């Protein structure tokens, strides 16, 4: 143990969490491991423009923006995050921008001015959060359409306006984009951030390894430390359940976990890759998943959350485990010495339990790109279209040979204690003609007795069972080449 203590003393020497708070350089050599960025801003920095509405990442009143250098373009990338469920480890080497910093010596930022002109504020409590989400979108340098606006603002709730003026304000600001003070300051900011990033990251209690080897050593030294990436789920343990996280290890800077590659028709997704980073690759290679991705939580959550986090917490209502089941993905586990690949179908072992061992972590997730001829659909049913948890999530992946069913791989959320597949479905309709409605009906019959879902606040068991069968019917309508195509969706982007 002496040796270990010695190692950690060396490792932690001269470490700090260094970032730009607006234009102020902040270097923290001590920091409570589980203080959120929101509490840091409001209680320690007295920057009270950022509000707490829910402390659970659901309302967006706490939205702030992180700017960080994009290695490829040498430019700053701006992302909106929920500061109420973000720990300080996320700030190292970045610029944390709050609403107080947007105006330029008394002149409102274009997104603020636009909001003023559109009468987009009423009670004003959600306003700073909206402004920050709008600011992040403003800096994406793209022409924005209605869908991009609703995507960018999907994590911000407003109870007063009904959103119409906010949508207009965002469209106007982005359509008339001009250089702002952040663009002008970019070279200076980049230099400052480069300088801050040379500080070794971490403080006692917050460990930020850069490599697989460091991660392995830290995990061995601090076996009780919790691994975090986006912290969007774990943070609820401190902000909602009032528990403490005295030691955390952030995976976000581990270079081996930050890779995203497509190899041999497999998307290999490092466990530190955020859902936003994943978006383009998914939309390009498995476009039928894009709607599910867009409806996965909200933009600020996706900017932080990782696919691996969604898999590791093994919630029966997570939206990606069913995808992994239906696409026969593999979860690659690592303990610093050995790696092993576990098929998704073997990974989820019980309610919030997985095959992952105490000393392991998820290195990456390998998602095979389905054959182009496969019929693949991903459906999510929830009370609200955006930022809601599924009542039922269903993914169907069907391969046919001349209309004969060869294989049906499925994944479902919300119907059992774990993410599940309908194994009997595959055997039950194999070899049958897909264009025959009797095949569909046979499938419905199997599905209707496959699971025993529960009643809860989101839906009744009865509804979940009905939906399961009806989504199967929808899948059949959409893929069995009806002579007259049948409209099956109410949502515009389907």
């Amino acid at each position, binding site marked *: 143990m002496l040796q270990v203590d010695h190692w950690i003393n060396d490792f932690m020497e001269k470490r700090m969490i260094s970032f730009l708070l607006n234009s102020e350089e902040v270097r923290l050599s001590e920091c409570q491991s589980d203080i959120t960025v929101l509490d840091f801003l409001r209680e320690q920095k007295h920057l009270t423009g950022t509000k707490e509405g829910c402390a659970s990442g659901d309302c967006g009143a706490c939205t702030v923006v992180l700017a960080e250098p994009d290695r490829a373009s040498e430019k700053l990338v701006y992302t909106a995050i929920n500061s109420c469920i973000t720990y300080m480890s996320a700030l190292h080497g970045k610029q944390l921008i709050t609403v107080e910093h947007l105006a330029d010596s008394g002149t409102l930022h274009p997104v603020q001015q636009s909001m003023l002109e559109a009468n987009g504020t009423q009670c*004003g409590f*959600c306003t700073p959060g909206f402004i920050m989400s709008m600011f992040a979108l403003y800096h994406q340098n793209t022409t924005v359409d209605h869908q991009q606006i609703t995507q960018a603002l999907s994590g911000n709730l407003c*109870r007063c306006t009904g959103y119409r003026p906010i949508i207009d304000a965002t469209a106007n600001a982005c359509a008339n984009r001009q250089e702002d003070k952040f663009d002008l300051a970019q070279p200076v900011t980049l230099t400052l951030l480069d300088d801050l990033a040379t500080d070794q990251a971490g403080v006692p209690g917050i460990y930020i390894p850069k490599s697989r080897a460091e991660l392995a050593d830290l995990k061995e030294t601090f076996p009780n430390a919790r691994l975090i990436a986006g912290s969007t789920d774990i943070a609820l343990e401190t902000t909602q359940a009032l528990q403490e996280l005295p030691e955390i290890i952030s995976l976000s800077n581990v270079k081996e976990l930050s890779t995203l590659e497509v190899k041999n028709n497999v998307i290999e997704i490092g466990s530190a890759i955020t859902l936003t980073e994943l978006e383009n690759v998914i939309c390009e290679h498995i476009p039928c998943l894009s709607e599910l991705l867009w409806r996965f939580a909200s933009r600020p959550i996706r900017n932080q959350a990782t696919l691996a986090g969604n898999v590791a917490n093994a919630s029966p209502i997570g939206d990606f485990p069913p995808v992994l089941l239906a696409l026969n993905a593999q979860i690659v586990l690592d303990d610093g010495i050995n790696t092993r690949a576990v098929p998704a179908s073997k990974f989820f072992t019980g309610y919030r339990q997985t095959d992952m061992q105490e000393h392991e972590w998820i290195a990456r997730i390998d998602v095979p790109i389905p054959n182009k001829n496969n019929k693949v659909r991903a459906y999510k049913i929830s009370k609200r279209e955006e930022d809601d*948890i599924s009542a039922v999530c269903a993914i169907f992946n069907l391969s046919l040979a001349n209309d004969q069913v060869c294989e049906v791989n499925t994944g479902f959320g919300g119907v059992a204690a774990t993410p599940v597949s309908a194994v009997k479905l595959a055997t039950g309709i194999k070899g049958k003609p897909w264009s025959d409605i009797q095949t569909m009906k046979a499938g419905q019959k199997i599905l209707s007795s496959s699971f025993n879902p529960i009643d*809860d*606040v989101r839906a009744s068991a009865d509804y979940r069972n009905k939906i399961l069968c009806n989504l199967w019917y*929808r899948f059949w309508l959409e893929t069995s080449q009806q002579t007259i195509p049948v409209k099956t969706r*109410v*949502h515009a982007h389907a």
Partner: protein
Amino acid sequence: MRKMVTGKNNDTESNVIGQSLAHESAIRQLNGKARYVDDIPNLANLKHAAVGLSQVSSGKILKIDLSRVKQSPGVRDVITVSDVPGHIDIAPVFDGDPVLADKDVLYHGQPIFAVLADSAEQARKAALKADIEVKQYSPCLTVEDAKYLKSFVRPKHQMKMGDPSSVLTHSGHTIKGELNIGGQEHFYLEGQVSVAVPEEEDRLMIYTSSQHPSEVQKLVAEVLGTQLNKITVDMRRMGGGFGGKETQAAQWACIAALFASRNRCAVKLRLPRMQDMQATGKRHPFVNHYQLAYDMEGKIKAADIEVNGICGHSADLSDAIVDRAMFHADNAYFIEHCSIEGHRCRTNMVSHTAFRGFGGPQGMIVAEAMMDAIARQTGLDPLTVRKNNLYNTDNRNTTPYGMKVQDNVLSEIIEQLEKSADYWQRRESIRIFNQDNPIIKKGLSLTPVKFGISFTAKHLNQAGALVHIYTDGTLQVNHGGTEMGQGLHTKIGQIAAHEFGLDIDAIEVTSTRTDKVPNTSPTAASSGTDINGKAVQNACLEIKGRLANFFAELCDGSPDDVTFNNKIVSLGQDSIPFVELVQKAYFERISLSSTGFYKTPKIHYDRETGKGRPFFYFANGASVSEVTIDTLTGEYKVDRVDILHDVGKSLNPAIDIGQIEGGFIQGMGWLTTEEVSWDSNGKLTSNNPATYKIPSIGDTPLEFNVDLYERENDEATIYNSKAVGEPPLMLANSVWCAIKDAIASLGDYKLDPQLDTPATPEKVLNAVIALQNRVAEE
């Protein structure tokens, strides 16, 4: 007595009234500098309070052991109800709301004790460590339970006109219906929060997020056993209220005040979101029944309506809320023979409270349900049925409570709207669409709103104001209303600016304070601008009178001819800049400050007879909604909404449109995705924003056309404007009716689907299946 100047300059074109000025705090809100209670800086020696909530919904408290709470790190003080030196009951109207649980537990989530610690985190963690034993009783949770147990918070009330029972008995065409109507969580973005700061001896300063500072002042004084004049309440702005901070902000101020008084330190109590949702009341769920008789023109001949409000454990404002449901069960329709009976059911739930519309929505939806039911029976288009039943102007214009409907503009509003929204053309396209699409169906509906304006508690229809002019010609304006985002202070500023012919930036509307304007009414019932605007105008008129007399003396003219325009005061050929006149007046020792007062005229209601004129006037509007539903999943999308709404002569069109759009979306949430749910033990299960879904940005209809029906209010309201806070919420009834219309298409519009609210996708799917089964049976 000085002679008052009549509002002559009101006739000239105003540069402030009727202008779409931005919200007075907009810039501060946009750059994060608008200060809410939780943002007040530099409070010395500030401690933080938290509350411990009951984990059962009904029972007798046997033991409260708080020793582990006291030992928890950072804890300074712990209190239960026995530590309250004054009154325990903080109920607003009738008894029954102990500040902390008193012997009995009345609902799940009831505060039993409170703890004070150095940090909010310490206080909240400590509050989890109590050991409380409760002998549990079986809770009363439904209308059925309450009626069986004769458990009511107030006696029932009835309004009656004609002879409904005889018409119903003898009519060949009758329909019976029942409607379960869900509650609604306010979900103001800023949760409940109060700060109490001790001042000299036993004086206290309270900062609170409350729609009713005067009531907070009174209740804080009462729990402390002190006089009202020792307590001052300051309320600058709320981050949303919607009724949820009318009565139910007081408890947190009282608890903070109890700690501040005992410990002589500043105390903040801010509820975490989940506790806020558990421990504060919601919109009342209702279970309503109707039986109606109609003729083949679709005219309703008689109706027997029963509304049952689920009030929770105490009366709170439920008497008036159920009354308002009854006052609106006719909505815009004349019912010659009508009985409306309202029950106030006591249940073991948090005490349900005011929420934008105040029972009106839960009553009005019955009227719309009846119209749809008649349409399906007669085969008439629902719009035709609605038009056939509207109140007339000369006859058929008496409400079931005996008030004549004057100023009746609804038929004109509907006529304009059905044209601008292209109702009949779209009705036809939708018919064709539905024929061509077996799975996806469309629905269309136009519904009107007629909403009565005034507090039905007559004494609340009064307001006060205090206006100061300073020697640089700027004004501070103070009044009894509170700013919660609705733009009240903006409109008040416009009124003061207009009266003196000044620009808006000469006016500063300051925080609502009980030491400036006393004994105020809550900012509620949409009345904020109506009553406070008039009070401010009266204060301005008083000072104007003094200035006009003074100037008339200087110019040797008549004060009646003095005008205030464009920062210039004029009399014939003579004129003087406003600021110079103010300075001269100061040196002549003329008072530049005045109070103002207003009480709403004409209103009265006799509960014995169920007759009167409870409302000064009605605000009207109508909306058309088009929806698409998925008959396989019950999902839906609101595709297009058109609204024409009557705000009288608008004081500020931008703010009025904001109220209409926001009210509509909030009403849509109530009727669609917002599902308040309790488990069978009375525990709230929709207790956070992950399980309770208010509309998000994608729910705003892609096409959303809102227009103002600008016609001066016939009644002498402030510049003949109309109240706008609550009425637009009920415009969302057209969304619910459009969903039903889409479902009805499955039975060729001959059957009326049963669709309780909120119409979640699950409820819509069940209604689809039920209707398909009925079609199959026939």
